[in-house]
C-alpha cells in the first residue's frame, strides 16, 4: 500500500472503518480487482456516443478534445446494433498511467484526457456539460469517510471514462 492509502485506511480503522470500507476495498490490491481500475494495454479510451458516425467529424471535435490538438489520436467506428458511434482517443505520448492508486493521488497522465472524452460525449449528446458544484451543503466536519471521499470525488469525473 502506498502511504496515501495507508494513512486514510488507518484513519478509517481507528474511527471504526465502517464508512470507507467499500471504497477502501476498491483501492486495496488484496481485494477483488474491480473492473473500473483496469486500463487496456493499447491506451485507447473509448465511449459510445448516440450519434451516426457521419455526424461526428474528427476534424472538428468538441473543445475539450480539440484542445489536445496533435497530442492525441482519434478513432471512430459505428457501434453494433444502432447503439451509436464508438469514439476512441489516446495520447500519442503514453508513459505508464499507473493503477487506481496513482489515479487517486491525481497522478494519472491519462486523467485529463479521460475527463475531456467524457465532456465531449456530453457536448455531443446533450449540448452541455453537467456540473454539480457548487451544491448547497452544511458544515463539513470530519467523518471517517470524508477525507478519502473528497480525494476521490476530485478525480471521480476523470476516472469516469475508460
Amino acid at each position, binding site marked *: 500500500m502506498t502511504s496515501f492509502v495507508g494513512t486514510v485506511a488507518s484513519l478509517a480503522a481507528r474511527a471504526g472503518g465502517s464508512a470507507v470500507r467499500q471504497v477502501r476495498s476498491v483501492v486495496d490490491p488484496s481485494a477483488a480487482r474491480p473492473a473500473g481500475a483496469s486500463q487496456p494495454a493499447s491506451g485507447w479510451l473509448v465511449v459510445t456516443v448516440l450519434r451516426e458516425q457521419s455526424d461526428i467529424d474528427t476534424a472538428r471535435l468538441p473543445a475539450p478534445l480539440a484542445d489536445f490538438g496533435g497530442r492525441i489520436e482519434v478513432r471512430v467506428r459505428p457501434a453494433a446494433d444502432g447503439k451509436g458511434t464508438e469514439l476512441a482517443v489516446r495520447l500519442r505520448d503514453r508513459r505508464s498511467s499507473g493503477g487506481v492508486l496513482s489515479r487517486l493521488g491525481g497522478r494519472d497522465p491519462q486523467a485529463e484526457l479521460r475527463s475531456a472524452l467524457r465532456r465531449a460525449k456530453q457536448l455531443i*449528446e446533450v449540448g452541455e456539460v*453537467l456540473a454539480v458544484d457548487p451544491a448547497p451543503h452544511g458544515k463539513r466536519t470530519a467523518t471517517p469517510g470524508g477525507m478519502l*471521499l473528497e480525494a476521490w470525488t476530485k478525480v471521480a469525473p476523470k476516472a469516469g471514462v475508460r
Partner: protein
Amino acid sequence: MKAVTWRGVNEIGVEDVPEPTIINDHDIILEVGLTATCGSDLHLMGGYIPAMRAGDVLGHEFMGTVAEVGRGVTKHQVGDRVVVVSFTSCGQCWYCRQGLWSLCDNGNPNPGITEALWGQAIGGCYGYSHALGGWAGSHARYIRVPYADQGAFPIPDGVSDERALFASDAAPTGWTGAHQAEVRPGDVVAVWGAGGVGQMAARAAMLMGAERVVVIDRYDNRLAQVRTHIGAETLDYEKVDVPAELRELTGGRGPDVCIEAVGMEAHSPGPLYLYDQVKQQMRLQTDRPTAVREAIYACRKGGTVFTLGVFAGVVDKFPLGAVMNKALTLRGAQQHGHRYIPEILDRMSRDEVKTEHLATHVMSLNDGPKGYRMFKNKEDGCVRAVFRPGA
C-alpha cells in the same frame, strides 16, 4: 435556507445552507412543497452506502412549484406545480432512449466511484451520496433540478400534493419492478416489504393484470394498509412460513414473479439473521440479503425474481444453485421513473393509484431528526415521514 442534513452515521441535523442557483441551461430551481423520507435514506443513515460527507442535504422524493427556469428549459414555467423523479437523467443517451433512465450515461458527475465498485456507472440521484452524483437533496426550501425537461412532470389539477409526492419515487419504483419483471395477466405475484415501495409494486402488479398479489411483512399497520388501500393480500412472516403459504396458494407452483422491496438491511426471524448481522458488522459482507434468498426459494420454476430493494456491494450465502437449477430470471434496477410517471399521474387523477396514506407523519424541516428517528424505528406506525419546508 434551512435543510435536513446527514451529519454522520445515525446522525441527522438541521442546518443553514446556501440556496441553490441555476448552473446548467436545462436546470430549474424548485420551491419544495413536500419532501419524503425513503427506505433508501435509512441505508445512508446507517452508513451502509459509504460515500456520504457530513453536511450533505438528504431527500430525493419531492414535489413543489417552479421558482426559476434555465435558458434551455422549454416545458416548464415559473409557478408550475410539478413532481420530480429522483434520478437525474439526460434523456439523450442510448440508455435513456431505451427507457432505462436510471442507467443514464450522463447524469452522474462523479462516475468514477460506481465504475470502480460495479464496473459501470449509473445515473445520478438527489441527496444520495457522492457515488450517485453528489446532488443536494430535497429536504430544503429550494432544490436545483438539472435536465428539468426530462425529470419534472406537471401535476394534474385534481391530484393533491400529498398524492403526487409519491409519483416521485415510491410509485415509479413499484412500476419499475412490476413492469421490468414482466408481470402478465393471470400471474401470482409476491412482494416482500410493505413500505411505500412494496405497496406501490403490489398496486402496479394488480393494474398490470396479476390475478393474485400477496405482500409480506411483519408490521400489522403496514399490512393493514396493503389490504385497505392497495387491495392486495398479506402474509406476516413472523407468524407463518412464507414459502409454504405461497406454495399452498399457488397450487404447489410458487409465485410467477417475486418482487423484493426490502433492501440490504433486511430482518429475519431465522438463524441466518444473526450470521448475516455479524458478517455485515465485520464487513465481510456489505448487505443482508434475507428477503432475496427467500424470494429465490419461493419462486416457481422458470419464474422471475426482481430486487427493487437497494443493495450496494456483496452478499453472502447467495442461493445461486436455486437460481441456476430452477431456471430463474434474476433482475434488479433503480427506478426508471421518467417512463412511468405520466401513466402514474394519470391513474392518480382517476383514483386508481392512491398514496396519501403513506404520509403518516407530516412535519416541518425542524423536525428532520425526529422524522428520521420515527421512520427508522417505525414508531407510532410511521410509514413515511414527510417534511413541508414552507411550514
